[in-house]
C-alpha cells in the first residue's frame, strides 16, 4: 500500500478537475481501484474502467467508457499486460463546477493515521480526533482503508470499523 502513489493520484485528480477534463487515467493498483470505486459509489466520479495506455472506447449511449460494455468488453489482465494497465476515470461536472472538489491526503507516506470507531464517531460529528479535522461541510467525505475495503467514514461508523485514513474529499 503505497501512499506515495496515492498522493500522486490525489494531486492528479485535483489537476484534472481544474483543467476540466472529462476523462483521466491513474496508475492501476488494488488500492487505487478500491478508492475509485468508493468515490464512484459516493457519486463523485461517473465511471471507473481498467484499460491500457489509450482510453477505452466510449459507451455509445452514455458517452463515457463503462466497465460492463457488452459490445467492446474489457480486456482481461494477463501477466503480459498488467504493467501497462491504467484506471480510466470519468469526471463529473455540475453547473460549471467540478463535482469532485478538492482531494486531500490525510495520512502521509511518513505519517500514517489510524482512527478507531470512537474517534471516527467524533470526526463524523464534526469534531477533531487524532489530529484529523471533523467533517464540517455539507458533502464532505473521508475515505478509510479498512478490513472490508475502502469505505467512507460514515459507512465505517455504521459497520463499526476503524482503519487507515486515506484522503478527504470536499
Amino acid at each position: 500500500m503505497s501512499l506515495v502513489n496515492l498522493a500522486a493520484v490525489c494531486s492528479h485528480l485535483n489537476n484534472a478537475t481544474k483543467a476540466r477534463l472529462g476523462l483521466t487515467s491513474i496508475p492501476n493498483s488494488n488500492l487505487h481501484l478500491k478508492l475509485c470505486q468508493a468515490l464512484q459509489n459516493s457519486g463523485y466520479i461517473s465511471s471507473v474502467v481498467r484499460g491500457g495506455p489509450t482510453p477505452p472506447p466510449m459507451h455509445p449511449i452514455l458517452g463515457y467508457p463503462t466497465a460492463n460494455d457488452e459490445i467492446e468488453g474489457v480486456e482481461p489482465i494477463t501477466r503480459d499486460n498488467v504493467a501497462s494497465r491504467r484506471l480510466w476515470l470519468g469526471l463529473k461536472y455540475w453547473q460549471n463546477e467540478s463535482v469532485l472538489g478538492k482531494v486531500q491526503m490525510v495520512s502521509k507516506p511518513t505519517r500514517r493515521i489510524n482512527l478507531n470507531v470512537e474517534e471516527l464517531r467524533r470526526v463524523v460529528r464534526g469534531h477533531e480526533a487524532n489530529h484529523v479535522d471533523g467533517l464540517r461541510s455539507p458533502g464532505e467525505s473521508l475515505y478509510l482503508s479498512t478490513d472490508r475495503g475502502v469505505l467512507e467514514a460514515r459507512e465505517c461508523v455504521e459497520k463499526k470499523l476503524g482503519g487507515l485514513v486515506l484522503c478527504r474529499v470536499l
Partner: protein
Amino acid sequence: MSFARPARCVFCSFSRAATQSTRVPRRQFHPSLPQFNDRPKPDVPVIKAFGKSAKSSAKATDFKPYTEEEKAYLAKEYSAAQLEAVEAGEAAIDPKDLAKQLNERDDPLKLNYVDDFSVIEPGIDRHVRSPQSNSDYNFKFKSEDDFVQDFGRFFAELPDDATGADFAKFADELRLTHGKEENELNSHSALVPDLFGPGETLDEPRAEERKTAAEKGEKERSLEAEEMTDALRSLLLATGYTADQVRDFRLKTLVSHSVVNQTRLGKVRRAYRLSIAGNGNGLLGIGEGKSEEASDAKTQSQYRAIRNMQPVPRYENRTIFGDVTGKVGAVSLQLMHRPPGFGLRVQHLIYEMCRAAGIHDLAARVSRSRNKMNTVKAAYEALMSQRDPEEIARARGRKMVDVRKVYYAGKV
C-alpha cells in the same frame, strides 16, 4: 382504508398514545369513517351489532317504579288518563332490556362530543332562518294613492315642534306592501343568511386604527418628499424597492478613510467609505463610495451596497452551511457554523455583516492580515461561497438527508 390516520414516525411505535381515538372532541368533517384500529384485519369480517361490546353503564335495578311522591308530582302535569297511559307504557318495558339498551355508543358512526340535541346551535347545527309562516303569498304592493294617504297621515299627525328625526322615523316605519308585516320585514328565505350583520367582518380594522394608519401614511409621504434626491430616485428605479423599504434596510458604514490621488497639480484628497446593507433576513450587499465630500461618499457607498444586495444562504435562518473560507489580498479568514444559541463570536466587522444579513450563530477566524476593507470583502466572498446541500445532492446523484430536520424538525 384508513386515510384519517395520522402519519406516524416509524421510530415512535413505542411512544404511541394509549388510546387510539382522537383525544380532542371535534366535528367530523370528512364523510369517510375514521378507523382507529391498528390491529390487522381478521380474514373473516366480524359483524357485530352496535353497542354490543360496550359495557352497559346501567343496571336493571336502577329502573324502579314511580314512588307515591313522583306520582303526585306527575298528577299535577298530566290528566288521569294520561297518567294511566304512562304507567302502562312503563310496565310494558322490561328493566333488563332498558339496562341493555342504555349505554354509550361504540360504533364508528358515534359522535365525538356529548350532546342531547335539545338546542339548535346557529352556524353549527344549521342556519337559523325565519319561519316559513312569515311568508305571505298574497301580498300586494302599495299603490301611489296609498303612499299619498300615508304621507297625508304623517303630515296631519306631525307635532308642532317637528324635527328631521320624525321624518326619519316615518321613513323607517313606512311599509311598501299590503299583507303580513313579517313577510316584508323578516321574510322566510331558502338562502343561507350571513353569520355577520351588515358592516361586520372578522378582520376589518377598527375605525381608529384605520385613521392612525392614514395619518401615518401622510407623515411618511411628507418625509419622502423632503428626502427624495436624484440618487435615491434612481436607486428606487433601478432596484424596485420603495422608499419605505430602503429606510428599513440595515445600513452600516464600516470602513472610512481618505485616499489621495497624486497628480501634477498636487495631491487630491478624497473620502473613501465602505458600507454594508442588509434586510436582516438573508440579504446582504457591500458598496464602496469615493467623493470629495465625506457625506457624499457615505450615501454613495450605501446606495451601492443596496444595489449589490444578494441573498446569503442561511442554515435554519441562523447560521451558515458548512465552514467556508475567503481570501482577499493578504486577508484570509474562515467562517465556521455553530449550534443554536452560540451567538456571534466574531470580530466587529464581521459581526455587523452578520447582523445585517440575519445570521445569529457564527464563529470566525481572521488570519494573516487584518486590513478592515479586505476583511469585509473576504467575509462577503466567504458567505457567498457556501455550497447548497440540495445542489451537492443533485450533482452527486445521491440523497442528502438533514438529520436535524428529520429527527427534530429543526426544533433543537
